[in-house]
């Protein structure tokens, strides 16, 4: 009887673990930059990713009439960190411009390294950007 109880508890624990891995957290870090107001908003929805990757700086400029954003990311870990990121653009009314043409790019951050990711607006109408970072393991 005792063996059966242990077996049941173990099975329940295993099922719980499988259930948890099946519901992987696909949230990440979002950095919104508005070139009209100069405001930057950093929103961290994934505590594990937020602990691993810091957003250390945001800059923007205009090249050939198109807005360009530079966002500096720094790894807080000594081991290699793999993330995916995409930068999409919005017009003055907050409407996303051709979101499908901005794919997730892969980024490998070496231990304690800092890199700057850059995004260029799809057209002159793009005035605000949104960088989204997710853990690379969460892409199917």
């Amino acid at each position, binding site marked *: *009887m005792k063996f*059966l*109880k242990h*077996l*049941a*508890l173990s*099975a*329940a624990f*295993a*099922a*719980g673990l*499988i*259930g948890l891995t*099946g519901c992987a957290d696909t949230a990440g870090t979002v950095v919104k930059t508005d070139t009209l107001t100069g405001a930057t908003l950093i929103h961290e929805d994934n505590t594990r990713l937020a602990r691993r990757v810091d957003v250390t700086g945001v800059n923007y400029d205009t*090249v*050939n*009439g*198109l807005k*360009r954003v530079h966002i500096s990311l720094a790894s807080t870990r000594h081991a290699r960190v793999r993330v*995916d990121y*995409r930068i999409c653009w919005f017009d003055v009314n907050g409407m996303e411009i*051709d979101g*499908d*043409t*901005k*794919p*997730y*790019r*892969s980024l490998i951050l070496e231990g304690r390294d800092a890199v700057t990711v*850059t*995004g*260029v607006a*799809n*057209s*002159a109408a793009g005035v605000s950007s949104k960088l989204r970072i997710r853990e*690379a*393991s969460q*892409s*199917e």
Partner: protein
Amino acid sequence: MKTPVSCLLFLALGTLMSGCATSNVREVPLDRAAATTQLEPQDVRRTVEKMVESLLVAPGVKEFVANRRPVLDIEPMKNRSTQHIDMISITDSVRMQLLRAGLFRFVDRSSAGTVGTDIARIDQENTLGLVDASKAVKAGQQTALDMYLTGTLSEIKNVSGRTVDQYYKFSMILKDLKTGEIVWADEKEIRKASTRPVFGM
């Protein structure tokens, strides 16, 4: 005592079984993790985006787009790799994204058969006698080309034991037709590696 244990076992089994349930077909994100060392859709999407962004902000392009929208043609990219890749589709994606940016105007003379089709249509309009002669399009009025864009895909593959190391390089150049100068050039490199398991295929 017997009932709760049985219930727990039943629940655990149910959860396990539902966790392992799979459907054969599902929609997946466009940008998924690498599955093979071959060139995959996400590689193409990233390459096109990188090339377009690089071209749009190139210093050499600045003087051409300052006061006007230069006319561009894009040649289908050349495939120098061992894989069968639809280079026309990649070329179309580059053209589409550049067109949407609004800095350039495009003509479509490099695509196979386009020039012939245009001539045939103008000729047909004029010779059939169905259209008003004063409104019919006359030949020799098409926009002249300012620049053209071309590119290649090359590949290096190394196999060492069970490890396959694959390297791809997309190169593109933008040429000024008038002077023959290269206005912009860039490349995108992709490297992938896979190790075959000891057992199994």
